[in-house]
């Protein structure tokens, strides 16, 4: 398997080793931490998972393995940042963070190093200025909402158009 990152329709900015990727097609923005960024930048369709793991290990300066890369690929695929068909079906299922952490043992700061992709739906002009709602009943899809933490508004949680307040990243999971 030699995964390939999407190039068309993306605006990519590198900031201190992390990446901010804006998807012009679906107006979603993704923050890739350093590990996810290394994997994303290495996905050129010619580099294998094993080679990506070596590259990641050199970049982080600590032991990693193919599970780290598969975890990153799963996150990147879910965010729509990989060319469809460039990864095997097992990548979509991915490797869980817990699995990788169990293998890596207890290491200080490990959770910060694990590949992570944080996503938001970019607000429409009206949404950017809109008030946050705590009840999504009757609210349009994308209206910023929160169930408990006002800082979740819009950035983390949006109304799903069916009365639910859900995570913006997947549009399904109920907002905490």
């Amino acid at each position: 398997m030699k995964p390939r990152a999407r190039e068309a329709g993306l605006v990519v900015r590198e900031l201190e080793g992390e990446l901010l990727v804006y998807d012009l097609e679906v107006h979603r923005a993704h923050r890739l931490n350093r590990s996810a960024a290394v994997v994303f930048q290495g996905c050129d369709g010619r580099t294998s998972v094993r080679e990506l793991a070596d590259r990641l290990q050199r970049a982080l300066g600590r032991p990693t393995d193919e599970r780290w890369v598969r975890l990153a690929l799963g996150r990147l695929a879910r965010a729509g940042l990989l060319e469809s068909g460039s990864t095997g079906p097992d990548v979509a299922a991915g490797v869980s963070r817990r699995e990788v952490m169990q293998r890596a043992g207890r290491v200080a700061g490990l959770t910060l190093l694990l590949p992570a992709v944080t996503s938001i739906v970019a607000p429409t002009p009206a949404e950017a200025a809109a008030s946050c709602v705590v009840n999504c009943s009757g609210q349009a899809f994308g209206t910023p909402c929160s169930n408990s933490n006002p800082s979740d508004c819009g950035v983390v949680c949006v109304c799903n158009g069916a009365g639910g307040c859900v995570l913006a990243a997947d549009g399904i999971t109920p907002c905490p």
Partner: protein
Amino acid sequence: MERLDRLGWTAEVAFESYGIRIGVRVNRPETLEHLTTLFPPGWRPSPGPVVDWLFSLLVGETQGRVRKFHMLYAGITRRARTLDLEAALDTLEADLRQIVAAHARRRVFVHAGVVAWGDQAILIPGRSRSGKTTLVHELVRAGAVYYSDEFAVLDSAGRVFPFAKPLSLREGDGIRRCRAEELGGVSGGPPLRVSAVILTEHRAGARWRPARQSAAAGLLALLGHAVPIRLRPEPTLSALEKVVSRAAILKGPRGEAEPTARLILERAADWGRGAVARAG
């Protein structure tokens, strides 16, 4: 539009704000003077007859027991139909600001409160009712210079300009508007570099102990409040990138606004020095 045009418009005014030309026509000329108080900060009369956006305000008249609705249109879209003229005017004011924020040329509007401390600015992104106005209010009372309680107006270099409309302070169910000067503060002046972006929300009993965030985390957070991000993604990202690449990004819940404002200003000088170092 033709049906709308046939209504009895007796007066109109055109103005320009951030490169956007907007016209407002009314059926009662005496309304015009009040309308200008609703225009975005920094507006100036537009000399030409051509506008990018046209609003029509039909003030309903009361004849005996018959009360007619006040109607507000943006183009041909009805924006308000109400017996409360103030409600129609509130909608007009909000729509005017919204249009300018979304379509301003050469500026990026981010929903945020802004104050200046020394020669640098502090940005507090947040939506309506997130408590940012309360925090801006306390910062101004503590000596910061008021720039905005609604929008951070950025240029392509990431400098922030004042958008000093009166502060809208929530009091019970209502809103009280007051100028910074009424709070013993001053309203801002020149465009400034940003030294800190504060991501916070009120949590009862909390003490503000923010954690440093990465520049990318700051960019993602600002992007969630950037009005034109879908309309002009690349210039918007560029301006925001300039901000986060030099500013300290701080995230954490806050308690009451007054002690938080004091803590912010105690640390503002450090952030300013850090921002200068990062830019250098």
